[in-house]
């Protein structure tokens, strides 16, 4: 499962539309979630609308929160998005095997086992989350909360059995050609993610769209192209259900 988590406090103001970029990401099998972060201010109607539209186009969820809620929100969003994609894939399998649309339609005996398998998949499926952090000047007072949220996410992912990796980007990047900059490549180590932002220069523009596209490129380079059709191959529920071998493909 691949996710981009965009954390921003305002509107994009340069470059391609981030909504288009998000739908491009989604078509390549990467879910885009967005967190708008406000601190004693308002994010503005335009900004709030953009945040919601980016998430919708990206197949993800969005939320506008205060810095102190950031860690919990990051954690819950990541987990919930992963759980939803696993469940959707598992339900497709249920439909093929049993002709039912959901766990609820299975008789109780079968249900217990199906749910157990789903939980196992949630724990063991590979998960890659790329964080894309807005580094415009207004984000400066919120960076501490962002760093803590990153550390906390790494802690949660470290505890999973399945492969769990975090990468961190900030935008805008250092030059005009690089809309965002990579702070830390795929890692599982919470310690590697500490103090990422102590030396970045906070600048004015917010090229959200191009930054998103650059992160999608990064996924493609490091993980290979995953089209939505391939990603839709459901994880096998395995075990006694249908007598199929357990074979996790998400």
């Amino acid at each position: 499962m691949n996710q981009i988590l965009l954390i921003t406090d305002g509107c994009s103001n340069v470059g391609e539309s981030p909504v288009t970029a998000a739908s491009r990401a989604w078509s390549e099998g990467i879910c885009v979630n967005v967190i708008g972060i406000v601190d004693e201010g308002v994010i503005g109607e335009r900004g709030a609308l953009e945040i919601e539209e980016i998430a919708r186009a990206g197949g993800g969820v969005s939320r506008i929160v205060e810095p102190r809620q950031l860690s919990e929100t990051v954690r819950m969003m990541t987990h919930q998005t992963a759980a939803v994609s696993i469940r959707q894939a598992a339900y497709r399998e249920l439909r093929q095997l049993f002709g039912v649309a959901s766990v609820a339609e299975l008789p109780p005996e079968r249900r217990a086992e199906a749910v157990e398998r789903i939980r196992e998949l949630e724990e063991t499926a590979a998960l890659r989350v790329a964080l894309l952090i807005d580094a415009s000047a207004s984000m400066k007072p919120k960076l501490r909360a962002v760093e803590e949220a990153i550390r906390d996410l790494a802690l949660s992912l470290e505890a999973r059995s399945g492969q769990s990796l975090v990468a961190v980007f900030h935008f805008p990047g250092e030059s005009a050609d690089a809309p965002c900059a990579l702070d830390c490549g795929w890692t599982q180590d919470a310690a590697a993610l500490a103090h990422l932002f102590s030396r970045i220069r906070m600048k004015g523009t917010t090229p959200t769209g191009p930054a998103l596209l650059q992160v999608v490129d990064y996924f493609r380079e490091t993980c290979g192209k995953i089209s939505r059709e391939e990603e839709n191959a459901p994880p096998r529920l395995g075990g006694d259900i249908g007598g199929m071998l357990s074979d996790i493909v998400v």
Partner: protein
Amino acid sequence: MRRQDWAAISAGCSVTLSSERSVLPPGTVVSGKWNGKTYKLQRLLGTGSNGQVYLASCGRSVCAIKFGSEAAELQGEANVLASLDRARKGRGKAPFLLDVDDCAMDGRHVPFYVMRYVPGTPLKDYLRRQGHERIGIIGCRLLEQLAELHEAGWVFADLKSDNILVSRFGRVELVDYGGVTAIGRSVRQFTEIYDRGYWSAGPRTADPAYDWFAFGILWLHALDGNRLLYLAQTRLPQVRSVEDLLKLVRTHARLRPLEPWMEKAFRGAFRDTRDALYQWKLAHWKARRAGGADISRWVAGMLALSAAAGLSWLAIRILS
């Protein structure tokens, strides 16, 4: 941020928020589609981590029914209770889980499970009203329940005052099994100050030590909540440590005698949960010997409890 909120905004899942779902009126009759049992709702007991819980009557007895917004989530919880029941079966204890089924409501099928009813007050409120004499006994009973849970392969993981109900006779029950995690898996539902990862005291993977840590925080939170929260807010994530917690323990009159036990709990240094329980009793007995007539009452209670437990263990051995 409630889990119901997340369920509602997830793409593709059409779900009614249990908080948005209106409270069902007393007298509502619920019948299970698969098992055919009927229940009459009396009143709403509370809203748990992924559903509403009602007090209901079934025939002549009372029980608690939990309605869920999502069949898979609810089934997950029921699975845990069923597994606990299997583990406890040989010891002649009453089952937690009484029924799992679906019912028809507003033209939709709503999943539910039925469990035994547990009356009581959340721990913090109980201690505020009744004082601190019973900490020892409550701790004992709680550790017993945790030991059973751990021996069945589960970790409670979301241990906190709201999930511990204490009844008038000092009976203690864990409620809301929504966060229970199999040993070895990652903990996903927790409260930050109770999480050992937050304090850099260990991984966020479920094991008995995870519960011991939260158990230690429980008393710190109940007796010294303001200082604990202040500490959490002011320490930078990278420097938060067990030592910070122990400083609080050391500087609190009631908790100081328990410092060695608390340190072991925070560092995960017990052999297993039964060992933690034994040492808890020992720590309170020692504290009593060191002085403090105000704790003698619950020490006496604990000794009586141990004697009763010992006698019933003996009885079971003789009879089996």
